[in-house]
């Protein structure tokens, strides 16, 4: 059965994932928009940087974050100067690490759906008196809805499942940074296989449901048509 401590880790995990997803949408949308529209030479570099977490071992990313966000690291110096203290072992630090780690799962679907919208509807909106921001919310957002849904779901699910980064920067603090994947790992390490099975089962069911929604329900939704 799930112990109260396990349930606590589940709740914390969903809290981290929800917050991280909201942040990723907030930051990822302008980034994806820029990537989809720009002809700048920086595009390739930024694309590569965003995609890095897809290929880097999470522990590598986690280790660099630990060093960077630590009191001696560049980011850590800034956060300390801002009076925020250093970020590792804090809930905020975990959310930030999750945002960096799961960002490609939000940016890439968004970028793809922005790209598929093309320039035509934007130009049509411009000739109908809609300014750039107005166009974005009245045309781009509704047309890119599948991209937003996919990005949000993948970003959330990936954050829930993340392990390596949390392990490195979390510090396993109950109610703050002890998320479900770490708890499962600790159960396994402590040879508490039955507890591990319960938690892992929860995670498995969750992940499967999310992917099922993604591949069945969302597929039946109207996808942005190229304008005719």
């Amino acid at each position, binding site marked *: 059965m799930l112990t109260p401590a396990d349930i606590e880790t589940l709740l914390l995990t969903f809290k981290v994932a929800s917050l991280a997803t909201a942040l990723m949408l907030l930051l990822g949308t302008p980034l994806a928009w820029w990537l989809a529209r720009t002809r700048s030479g920086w595009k390739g570099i930024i694309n590569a940087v965003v995609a890095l977490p897809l290929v880097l071992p999470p522990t590598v990313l986690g280790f660099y974050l630990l060093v960077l966000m630590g009191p001696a690291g560049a980011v850590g110096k800034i956060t300390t100067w801002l009076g925020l203290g250093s970020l590792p072992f804090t809930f905020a630090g975990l959310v930030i690490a999750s945002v960096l780690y799961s960002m490609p799962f939000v940016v890439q679907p968004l970028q793809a759906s922005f790209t598929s919208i093309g320039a035509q509807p934007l130009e049509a909106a411009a000739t109908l008196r809609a300014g750039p921001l107005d166009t974005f919310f009245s045309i781009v957002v509704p047309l890119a809805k599948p991209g937003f849904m996919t990005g949000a779901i993948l970003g959330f699910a990936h954050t829930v499942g993340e392990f390596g980064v949390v392990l490195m920067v979390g510090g396993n603090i109950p109610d703050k940074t002890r998320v479900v994947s770490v708890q499962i790992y600790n159960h*396994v390490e402590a040879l508490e296989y039955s507890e591990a099975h319960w938690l892992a089962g929860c995670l498995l069911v969750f992940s499967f449901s999310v992917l099922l929604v993604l591949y069945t329900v969302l597929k039946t939704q109207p996808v942005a048509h190229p304008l005719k």
Partner: protein
Amino acid sequence: MSFNCLKSLLLTLNLFSKSIFLTLFLVSFSAIALAETTLVAVAANFGQPMAEISGAFKKATGHSAKLSLGSSGKFVAQFESGAPFEVFLSADNEKPLKLEHAGLTVPGSRFTYAVGKLALWSATAGLVDGQGQILDKGGFKHLALADPKLAPYGAAAIEVMKNKGLLKKLQPLFVEGENIAQTHQFVRTGNAELGFLALSQIIDNGKIITGSGWIVPENLHSPILQDAVLLKTGEKNPAASALLQFLKSPEALAIIEKYGYGLPKSK
């Protein structure tokens, strides 16, 4: 000298040379037969001394040891699933015992190869005093230790704080590494101001290398016994039992001590 004498001399010489050839042949044959390789699962904290020991082992016996470093808990799960390791050097004494109860080891092969020494360490020079009074004084935000549920060094650290009556006060400052190596990273990068580590992690040639540290007296916690065991899979491999034997040799013990471990009390 008679002809007979000469003849017997030649005969003797002949016999002698034959025996030399035989001896040489036997020796070389046995050398080939004895140069075995054994697969060893080593608790990550003992990686460095073990690498040196396996070098010495090869020189002394001709056998070689292939080392896999990892967490003891993961190794246990892997043995249970039929991993091909023959020797297990655990970071504690519980896991080898558990394996023994499960019938996965060769009976009577379990013994303590090293005793872990606990240290309170900070990357900042002068922060940790020689008596560990900083624990009482405070003035830090994070105290790193290995997850006490998973790592004996973590459990020992808890005991130390309990004995000093500081556990309640310090508990909110805990940041737990999944293992002792990760705990070391927390402290090394300055994310945690200080932490309980294995002395072996911060020692070089018997001295603490940088920062400041306090070697925790052994009477403040129960001994951190690191046990080795011969797994069933290694029962027939002479190199496996030779390695366990070699761990008790003076040469190996010297290496173990050099890396900051205590020696097992001889029975």
